[in-house]
């Protein structure tokens, strides 16, 4: 085990986004993967972060409310009548 530079779990959870965003330098990335490979808790944590991202990705973006739509259509009509 590379104890001297090994990551603790507490440090690892702070690097998850850097890892997903591919922002870790090669050496840090290797230490991250080495840790996850032998730590069940961190493996589960990483899965939970992936699942969180997946489930958040299924939420519906917000659409325009009918009142806002009415106002925007009016604004558009007003713009069209002045711009031509």
């Amino acid at each position, binding site marked *: 085990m590379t104890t001297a530079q090994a990551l603790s779990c507490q440090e690892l959870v702070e690097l998850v986004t850097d890892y997903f965003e591919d922002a870790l330098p090669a050496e840090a990335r290797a230490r991250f993967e080495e840790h996850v490979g032998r730590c069940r808790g961190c493996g589960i944590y990483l899965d*939970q972060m992936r699942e*969180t991202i997946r489930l958040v990705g299924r*939420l519906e973006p917000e659409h325009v409310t009918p009142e806002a739509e009415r106002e925007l259509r009016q604004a558009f*009509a007003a713009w069209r009548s002045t711009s031509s």
Partner: protein
Amino acid sequence: MIDPAEFRELEALRSGDEEAFMAVVDRYHGSLLRVAQIWVSNRSVAEEVVGDTWVAVLRGIDRFEGRSSFKTWLFRILANTAKTRAVREGRTIPFSSLQNPGAVPESAVPADRFRDSDDSSWPGHWASPPASWDEQPERRLESLETRERLEAAIAALPATQRAVISLRDIEGWSSEEVRNALELSETNQRVLLHRARSKVRRAFEEYLSEDVR
């Protein structure tokens, strides 16, 4: 560079096609609202800011030449509109939350879930490790309640974190697009995304650990 389909849509909009306008409005509405709330205090003011932004877009559309992406141009107008409004409201602009979000440390996971740093055998390792979600019934993860819990967790985030997670994970923007729209550095975008995702995971873990009814 601008997306060709969007370019055609903007051409239609410019020539007076109302439905083309509404299609563009609908595509960006949720993102604009989330981002506006970084600067203004509440939802109804944010809605006004978004409305004013569209009016400014229409007034300026002839000057938009497609050299930057429409998205970048649109969100720059939104930011200016929202900041002006914030000043008028007498609200201080949360500059630090965008420019230096890492100033105040924040943990992804509460420290008491880990062993102490002076633990003799496993310092900083899990004291109370997370439990796998693999055994969760799929229908629970796909339920309306799950969606509501996630939405509530996102709604509870500070406005800048909420904006970043919404654009990245709900709207599917790239980190570069988010950085351009919010004028964030690469590091700050990542800090905000990390904090947002970590808190949503934590809230969801709490929800899943409640008894299944």
